[in-house]
C-alpha cells in the first residue's frame, strides 16, 4: 500500500518527547502513539488487552500485579525490550511531576518512603521486583505506603495511558546526558522518528520491523510516512483538509463539525462518548466559592442549552455533571439543579447582604470560543448580581495557574475528564491531591469533600464491578448536590478525513482479539497503525 498521510492537529506539545515529561493533549497522544507502543490497549468491549505486555496477572486481592513483557521486540535503536527497560520507564514516569500525582497509590521504596516522613515521595522508586528478564511485579500502597496495600482492580488501565508509553532506555540515558536529544523519540512503535520542527511538523517513517501484524499476517504499518502538522486555527485546518493539503484532522470545533458532517467527501468519525466535559472550574478555597449556596446559584444562573444554541449553533449536548455519556458514572438525571435565575439572584442577594459585593475573576484561554463563553457567563452572572472580570491567558499558563492555585484563580473556563472509568479521575478530585495554594496540585479546585473521597476510593477499590459502578454514580450525584463544578456541555471530537483514508479505528490487538479502541478514553485522537490510503 504505502503512501504518506498528512495529519492536522491543534496544539504543539510542551517538553517533547520523553514519555515522562511530555504535557500531552490529544494531538500529542496521536503523535506519540505513532512511535511509542503502550503496555496495554483498551478493546472494543472496554477491557484492557496487553499490548507490549504479554500478560498482566493480579494477585488475589489486586494489590500486586505481575507483568510479563513480550519477547523479541526491539526499540528503533536496536535496544531490546525487556522487563528492565519497562521498569526504567515506569519509574521515570512515576517520578515525573504530573504523572506521579496520578499514581499516588502505588507503593514506593520503603526506606525512601520512611525518609520522606510524610512529605513528598515523588522522588522514591516504585516497589517493583524483577522476576526474570521479561517479568516483574508492581505493588500498590495507599499514599505510597507498602505496608498499606490497596486493592486496585482497574490499575492495569493506567498502563494504557501516557505512563505506559515505553521508550528506549538507551535513548533515555542519552537524553539524561544531553537534553537536546529529547525531541528525537525512540520507541517500539509502528513508525520511527524522522524529523521534528516544533510548532510546525513532525515526520515519522514506517518501521520496517514492526512486530504487530494484521489479521492476515501482513506487516504493519501500511503507510510509509506520517506528517503531523500543527495548525492551531480550526477553520484553517478545515480549509487545508478541503484543499487536499491535509488528509485527516482532529477537531472539537462545533462549527467545523457542523459544516462538514453531511459532506460525503469528508467522512467524520465522531467521538462523542467518554469525552471531556466543558465546565467552569471553581477555586473552592476562596471564601465565596467555599459556600455551596453561591456555587449552586452560579450554576442555576446558567442556561446550558442557551449557551450551546448561542455559541455552538445548537451543536452540543448540555452536561449535568463531570461524566460524559458512556463513562462509568454517567447519569441522565443526577439530581443537578435546573436553570433558575430567580433562585440564583435570591441566593446571591442573600449572600451579598451578609458579606458584601461578590466579584468573580473568570479566566479562560485565548481561543475565540472561550472568550464567547466568558462573555456569556459574565452577562448572565451579572444579571443575578455577580460582577465578573474576564482574563484571557494562553492555555499552558492557565493550566499552571490552576496547578499552583494562583491567587487570581477564581473560576476558569475548563475542559477535562475524558476517560472510561471514574478511577481515572481520582487524582483530579481526591483531597489527598488538594495541596495548598502555591504547591502543585492536580486537584485544581482544591476539592476537599469526605463523600467525594469515599466514592473515589470505592470506585478504585470496590470488590466488584457493580460496587465500582455504584460508587461512580454516587460520585456524580455528589458533584451535582455540592455544585463543585459548573458543567455546561460535553465535548464532541471529530476525526475528519478525505475518502482516500481507510483503516482508522482498526488497530489490531497483538493477540488477534479484535481492535483497539482509538483514544482508549482520550478522544480527539486516532491511531494510524492500520491506516492506509486507497487509490
Amino acid at each position, binding site marked *: 500500500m504505502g503512501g504518506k498521510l498528512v495529519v*492536522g492537529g491543534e496544539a*504543539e506539545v*510542551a*517538553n*517533547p518527547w520523553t514519555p515522562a*515529561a511530555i*504535557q500531552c493533549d490529544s494531538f500529542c497522544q496521536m503523535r506519540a502513539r505513532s512511535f511509542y507502543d503502550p503496555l496495554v490497549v483498551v478493546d472494543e468491549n472496554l477491557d484492557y488487552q496487553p499490548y507490549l505486555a504479554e500478560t498482566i496477572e493480579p494477585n488475589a486481592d489486586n494489590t500486586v500485579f505481575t507483568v510479563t513483557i513480550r519477547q523479541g521486540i526491539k526499540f528503533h535503536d536496536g535496544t531490546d525490550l525487556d522487563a528492565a527497560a519497562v521498569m526504567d520507564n515506569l519509574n521515570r514516569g512515576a*517520578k*515525573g*511531576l*504530573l504523572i506521579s500525582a496520578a499514581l499516588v497509590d502505588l507503593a514506593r521504596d520503603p526506606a525512601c518512603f520512611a525518609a520522606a516522613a510524610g512529605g513528598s515521595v515523588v*522522588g522514591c522508586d516504585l516497589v517493583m521486583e524483577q522476576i526474570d528478564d521479561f517479568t516483574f511485579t508492581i505493588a500498590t500502597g495507599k499514599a505510597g505506603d507498602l505496608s498499606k496495600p490497596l486493592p486496585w482492580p482497574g490499575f492495569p488501565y493506567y498502563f494504557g495511558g501516557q505512563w505506559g508509553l515505553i521508550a528506549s532506555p538507551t535513548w533515555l540515558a542519552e537524553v539524561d546526558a544531553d*537534553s*537536546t536529544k*529529547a*525531541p528525537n523519540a525512540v520507541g517500539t512503535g509502528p513508525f520511527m522518528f524522522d524529523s521534528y*520542527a*516544533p*510548532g*510546525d*511538523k513532525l515526520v515519522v517513517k514506517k518501521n520496517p520491523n514492526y512486530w504487530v501484524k494484521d489479521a492476515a499476517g501482513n506487516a504493519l504499518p501500511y503507510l510509509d510516512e506520517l506528517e503531523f*502538522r500543527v*495548525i*492551531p*486555527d480550526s477553520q*484553517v485546518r478545515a*480549509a*487545508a483538509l*478541503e*484543499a*487536499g*493539503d*491535509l488528509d485527516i484532522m482532529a477537531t472539537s470545533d462545533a462549527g467545523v463539525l457542523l459544516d462538514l458532517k453531511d459532506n460525503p467527501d469528508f467522512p467524520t468519525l465522531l467521538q462523542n462518548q467518554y469525552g471531556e466535559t466543558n465546565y467552569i472550574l471553581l477555586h473552592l478555597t476562596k471564601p465565596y466559592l467555599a459556600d455551596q449556596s453561591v456555587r449552586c446559584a452560579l450554576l442555576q444562573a446558567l442556561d446550558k442549552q442557551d449557551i450551546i444554541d448561542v455559541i455552538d449553533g445548537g451543536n452540543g449536548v448540555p452536561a449535568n455533571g463531570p461524566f460524559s455519556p458512556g463513562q462509568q458514572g454517567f447519569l441522565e438525571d443526577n439530581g443537578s439543579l435546573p436553570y433558575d435565575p430567580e433562585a440564583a439572584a435570591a441566593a446571591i442577594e442573600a449572600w451579598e447582604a451578609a458579606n458584601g459585593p461578590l466579584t468573580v475573576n473568570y479566566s479562560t484561554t*485565548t481561543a475565540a470560543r472561550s472568550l464567547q463563553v466568558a462573555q456569556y457567563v459574565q452577562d448572565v452572572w451579572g444579571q443575578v448580581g455577580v460582577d465578573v472580570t474576564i482574563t484571557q491567558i*494562553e492555555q*499552558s*499558563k492557565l*493550566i*499552571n495557574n490552576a*496547578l499552583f492555585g494562583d491567587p487570581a484563580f477564581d473560576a476558569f473556563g475548563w475542559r477535562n475528564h475524558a476517560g472510561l472509568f471514574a478511577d481515572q479521575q481520582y487524582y483530579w478530585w481526591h483531597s489527598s491531591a488538594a495541596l495548598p495554594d502555591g504547591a*502543585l496540585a492536580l486537584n485544581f479546585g482544591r476539592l476537599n469533600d469526605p463523600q467525594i473521597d469515599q466514592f473515589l476510593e470505592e470506585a478504585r477499590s470496590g470488590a466488584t464491578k457493580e460496587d465500582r459502578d455504584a460508587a461512580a454514580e454516587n460520585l456524580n450525584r455528589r458533584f451535582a448536590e455540592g455544585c463543585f463544578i459548573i458543567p455546561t456541555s460535553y465535548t464532541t471530537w471529530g476525526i475528519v478525513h478525505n475518502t482516500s483514508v481507510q483503516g482508522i479505528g482498526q488497530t489490531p490487538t497483538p493477540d488477534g482479539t479484535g481492535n483497539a479502541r482509538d483514544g482508549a478514553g482520550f478522544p480527539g485522537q486516532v491511531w494510524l497503525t492500520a491506516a492506509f490510503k486507497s487509490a
Partner: protein
Amino acid sequence: MRYLLQRIGQFIIVFVVVTFVVMCATRIGSKDVVRDLAGGTVGDEVIAKVEADYPYLDKPLVIQYGYWLKDMVTGNMGYSYAQSQSVIDMFQQRLPSTFFIGFWSIFLGLLIAVPLGIYSAYRRDGPVDRVASYSSFAFISTPPLVFAVFLLYFVALKIDTFPVLSNYIAPWDSPVEHFKNFFLPSLTLGLGLAAVWTRFLRADMILTLQSDFIMLARAKGMSPRRILYRHALRSSILSLITSVALQLSGLVGGAVIAEQFFGLAGIGTRLVFAVQQNDILVIQAITAVLVVVVVFVNLVVDLLYAVVDPRIRHARALG
C-alpha cells in the same frame, strides 16, 4: 568613515535600550523566572538544570542583562527548554520562512506600486489614477487579516495551484514550488504595502513633475518614459525608500498573520508563542535579531540615499 562610526554608535544604543527594555518586560510578567524558562510544569531536575545553566537569574536585572549580552556576543543565543530546541536551531528552522515572506511582500509591493504610482502621477485624475486611488484607500483600510482570509478561501481553496497549507521550500531547491508556497502569504502583506507606496510615490511624483528641471527635460524633447523613470523617479524615490525601511519592522507583525493562516512556521508565530509561554530567551533573541535587522536595513537605506541623490553624497563628503 565618521558617518559610519556615528551609525554604529546609534545602533549600539538602540540595541541595548530595546533589548534591555524587552528583558525587563519578560521579568515583570513572570512570577518565577526559572520555572518559566524551564517550560512551566516541570520536575525539580529540570529546574536544577536551568539554575545550573543560568545561575544569574536571581541577580539584579542589569547583571542578568550583562550575562545575556555576553552570551549573545559569543554566539550563545540560549535554549528553549519548553520546546527542547536551541534558539539557533529555531532560527535556522524558522527564519527563512519569515525572510521570504518579508522579501516577497516588499518585492510585490514595489512591483505594483512603482509603475502604478508613476503612471497615476503622470496621468493625474485619469481613469487609472482614479481606480488606483480608490483601490489604495480600500487596501490601506483593510487589515492583512482580511486579505489572508480572502486569499485563503477564494483563491487557495478554489485554485489548485496554490496550497492552503504552505511549506518552506527554498527557491534554489524548486523555484516553482517556492513561488506556489510563498505567493499568497506574500500577497497578503504585499497588497497593503503596495497601496501605501502607490500613494507615497504618486504624491512625490506629482510635485516632482512640476519642477523646472522636468520642464526643461520636456523642452529638450526627452521621451515621457525617460523623463519619468530616469529623472522624475530618481528625485521622488527617497520617501518611498524611507517608507520601505519603516515598514520593515511592521512586517513581522504582518508575517504572524501570513504564517498563521498559511501554515508557515516562521519567526512571527514563534514570537507570539514565546510571549504566551514567557519563553524568555526566545523572546529576547528574536527581539535582538529584529533590532539588528531593522537597524541594518535603515543603515543600508541611508547609504542608498547617497546613491540615489548626489546632493546628499556631496553634503556628506563635505561634512
